[in-house]
């Protein structure tokens, strides 16, 4: 998933993120996915003659949250009009921030330790949705199109990375980390499949050692992390093949065809479109004062990188091993890291807490996020005290996640009533006393007789004893 030998890829990502506000950017229509077409529209977001925009406070705050989470400088900003005709755009211009965006000069630290610069994160309005209707359903063959403006005017933040990404793997990591930040900051639900996070990739290649950048292509329609990394990989390969074959890469906008697994030309971009940007006269500049910025900053919870560090710190000076890094990333990405931290804080082995959370709780992350951390900790305590076997603990955990309740009760209901350590010792001692010959041979080195004793203990306890605990008792009696 990195460039062919001797080649280097230069990748920049533009991510459009729909903000989780109650209303649209410039009007009081609901910002809501999935409504009947053209039911969330008003004179403003339909661009009716005479209507005027008024900026939403919530959109500005969420934009600042994104900026601050990305270590950007929050600055005074100005809205511009970006003029071009397209039927999904009610006013035939998009209101967007151009040369004075609200957030500039930030960065994003990735779980692999690399850092990607963030050039800007600016506010703009979304467009409506066109559906092409016609014989083939593809754009060029379509007989006509239908337009729904429910999404028109929904607030977006466009996050533009510096072109510092070098592989499809890193591009994917950046997008997934960014998504985690957008979710953690409360700005977005991060749902790529619903279009609330959309990624475009600018890709160019050059020979290792070259300073000059190659001609770039912009790849659109990347609506999953998988599509992103496949498309970037394909595009790198395509461009390298062109240059190695003696050709020249043409500046283009390309479309990722998920079914065919390749990018296809949308249009050539030899001549830049003339958007005729100018300051939007219907809006006034935005200049959040320091107090407002600090308010927003102090209301931000820890970001994924901080949270990963917090989990790693549970493992002490040595930190978590590489093998655990994936688990750490998983629990943070899924928003389950607080369970690990709570359990470890109550004396659970960090490794156990992390493993159960990353492997078992993660299976149903949405439900697991709702689990009471105290109950979760109690369950892990039962396992750590060997009152439950690992298999039993996993079964109880699954129940806890789906239905909630007290782990002790769940265990009892499932017939896993644990034997107290004291009573187990009595049972083991009794079984040993009843079989002196086997005990002598066991002490003499016939290790496989452990199964014999364990089997008797299990029968005596109706299967409630923990195998490991029995072995521990036997070892204790051996001295």
């Amino acid at each position, binding site marked *: 998933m990195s460039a062919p030998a001797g080649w280097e890829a230069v990748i920049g990502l533009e991510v459009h993120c729909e903000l989780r*506000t*109650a*209303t649209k950017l410039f*009007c*009081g*229509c*609901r910002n809501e996915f999935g409504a*009947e*077409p*053209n*039911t*969330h*529209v*008003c*004179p403003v977001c*339909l661009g009716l003659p005479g209507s005027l925009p*008024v*900026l*939403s*406070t*919530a*959109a*500005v705050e969420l934009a600042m949250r994104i900026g601050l989470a990305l270590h950007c400088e929050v600055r005074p900003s*100005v809205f511009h009009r970006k003029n071009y*005709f*397209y*039927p*999904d*755009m009610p006013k035939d211009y998009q209101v967007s921030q151009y040369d004075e965006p609200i957030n500039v000069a930030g960065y994003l630290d990735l779980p692999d330790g690399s850092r990607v610069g963030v050039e800007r994160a600016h506010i703009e309005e979304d*467009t409506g949705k*066109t559906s*092409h*209707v*016609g014989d083939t359903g593809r*754009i*060029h063959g*379509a*007989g*006509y*199109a*239908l*337009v*729904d*403006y429910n999404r028109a005017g929904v607030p977006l933040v466009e996050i533009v990375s510096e072109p510092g990404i070098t592989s499809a793997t890193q591009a994917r990591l950046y997008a997934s980390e960014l998504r985690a930040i957008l979710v953690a900051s409360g700005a977005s639900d991060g749902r790529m499949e619903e279009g609330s996070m959309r990624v475009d990739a600018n890709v160019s290649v050059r020979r290792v050692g070259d300073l000059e950048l190659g001609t770039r292509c912009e790849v*659109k329609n990347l609506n999953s992390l998988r599509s992103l990394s496949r498309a970037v990989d394909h595009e790198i390969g395509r461009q390298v093949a062109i240059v190695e074959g003696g050709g020249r890469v043409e500046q283009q*906008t390309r479309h990722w065809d998920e079914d065919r697994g390749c990018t296809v030309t*949308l*249009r050539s971009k030899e001549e830049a*479109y*003339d*958007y*005729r940007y100018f*300051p939007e*006269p219907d*809006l*006034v*500049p*935005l*200049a*959040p004062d320091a107090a407002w910025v600090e308010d927003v900053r102090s209301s931000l919870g820890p970001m994924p990188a901080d949270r990963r560090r917090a989990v790693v710190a549970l493992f002490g000076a040595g930190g978590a091993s590489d093998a655990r890094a994936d688990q750490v990333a998983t629990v943070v990405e899924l928003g389950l890291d607080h369970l690990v931290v709570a359990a470890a804080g109550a004396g659970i082995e960090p490794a156990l807490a992390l493993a159960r959370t990353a492997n078992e709780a993660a299976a149903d992350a949405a439900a697991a996020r709702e689990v009471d951390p105290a109950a979760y900790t109690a369950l892990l305590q039962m396992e750590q005290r060997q009152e439950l076997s690992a298999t039993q603990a996993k079964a109880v955990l699954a129940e806890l996640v789906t239905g909630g309740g007290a782990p002790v009760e769940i265990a009892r209901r499932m017939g896993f009533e644990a034997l107290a350590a004291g009573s187990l010792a009595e049972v083991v001692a009794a079984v040993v006393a009843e079989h002196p010959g086997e005990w002598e041979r066991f002490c003499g080195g016939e290790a496989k007789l452990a199964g014999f004793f364990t089997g008797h203990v299990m029968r005596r306890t109706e299967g409630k004893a923990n195998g490991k605990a029995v072995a521990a008792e036997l070892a204790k009696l051996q001295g």
Partner: protein
Amino acid sequence: MPARITREETAHVARLARLDLTDDELDRYAPQLAGVLDHAAQVAAVDTAATPPTAHPFPLRNVLRADVPVPSLDRQVVLAEAPAVEDGRFRVPRIIGEAP
């Protein structure tokens, strides 16, 4: 100040502005625009090296609205004014190409 607007530039600008002008219109508008632009070019005579641009007569800042939903328009009302409608949506001729 740049040269007067030519017929070709007028045609280019008309394309940008989505105006399907006839040859007659282009012949007529080009010199008229050139005349007005010649007059407007007088702004170049003002020394503005130390002058910031004015986009708004008054320096308002941070005009904001609470994030509280208000009722949207009734869909019948919205679609009643449209030249063509289908399936609750605005119908338009085929679209060639994506947005620029």
